[in-house]
């Protein structure tokens, strides 16, 4: 039984792919899965730092692909969750250091010994993106509810379908419920209407992510954090369980609409 290989990509930078991969990886491992998270952002590695594993890097993906070490030597075991491993990116090379064919072969090797391979894609549509999706069975688009990110997500979806990688699924990240209520942020429904792909998760904007990244502790390990819960819910859905979406951006309730009509805000 081989692993499911899943790439998280977006087009736009800064929407939360790396945080998403780290936390989805942790969440899947918390459920008992053997998980490898792979940083495909060669030259600008960040998955290591978000996971708090940056001091443990000895070898990276380019060392593996160029034969300077065995795959097993490059994989870093997360001491908090022994079934979770990180394959870090190289920091001193760039996206051309690895080819899509090499990524496919690497994923084939990785998938023999775990349940999930999660690939953190770089932003953009160039070789880094091509590398990141080459070995994937499934692709998840991460977006934020704003014009630029959604536009880029749409383009990426088109590229993915054109590459015969099927139809990706969607996570909407960094939702601010107050702004949604005020009518200043696109709702989940708006984004789904525009992108027309299946939603697998919504994640609220959450300061605890910054704090936990400062500490190198993925927020999915924090029982109090709403975004942590959101990521754990996504992991459940990825595993096939039916988890209702958090109500973080309700359209105004009938009562509130009535109050507004009467003149109070």
């Amino acid at each position, binding site marked *: 039984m081989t692993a499911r290989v899943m790439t998280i990509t977006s087009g736009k930078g800064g929407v939360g792919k790396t945080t998403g991969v780290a936390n989805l990886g942790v969440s899947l491992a918390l459920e008992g899965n053997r998980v490898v998270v792979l940083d495909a952002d060669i030259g600008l590695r960040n998955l290591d730092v978000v996971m708090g594993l940056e001091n443990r890097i000895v070898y990276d993906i380019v060392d593996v692909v160029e034969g300077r070490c065995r795959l097993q030597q490059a994989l870093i075991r997360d001491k908090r969750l022994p079934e979770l491993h990180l394959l870090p990116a190289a920091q001193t090379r760039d996206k051309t250091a690895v080819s899509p064919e090499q990524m496919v072969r690497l994923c084939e090797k990785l998938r023999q010994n775990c349940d999930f391979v999660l690939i953190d894609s770089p932003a953009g549509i160039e070789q880094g993106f091509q590398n990141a999706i080459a070995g994937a069975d499934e692709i998840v688009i991460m977006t934020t509810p*704003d*014009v630029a990110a*959604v*536009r880029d997500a*749409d*383009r990426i*979806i*088109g590229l993915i*379908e054109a590459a015969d990688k099927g*139809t990706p699924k969607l996570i909407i990240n960094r939702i601010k419920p107050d702004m*949604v209520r*005020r*009518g*200043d*942020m*696109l*709702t989940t429904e*708006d984004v789904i209407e*525009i992108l*027309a792909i299946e939603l697998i998760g919504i994640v609220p904007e959450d300061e605890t992510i910054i704090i936990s990244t400062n500490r190198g502790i993925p927020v999915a390990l924090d029982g109090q954090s709403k975004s942590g819960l959101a990521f754990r819910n996504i992991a459940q859905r990825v595993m096939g369980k039916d988890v209702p979406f958090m109500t973080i951006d309700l359209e105004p309730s009938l009562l509130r609409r009535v109050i*507004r*009509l*009467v*003149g109070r*805000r």
Partner: protein
Amino acid sequence: MGFLDRLLRRAPPSKEIAKERLQLVLVHDRQPLSPELLQMIKDEIIVVISKHVDIDRENTEVTVSRGRGYQKLIADIPIRNPRRRY
């Protein structure tokens, strides 16, 4: 939006503007063929079909139908003389 706001005709919520702009920009982004290219294709189709059948050139239309996963060229070519040529 509040009753008073609507009464005073204040600007719609910014997310509505965002949504409209996005929908417009994506219609344009998803467009695969330029109008010039489309015209060239149409002209050449007319030439080729005309070799075999007499067609109504003025009412011939070649359009692109597109979704995100597909694009189709649709040629609507009225034939002038439906009887077979020998």
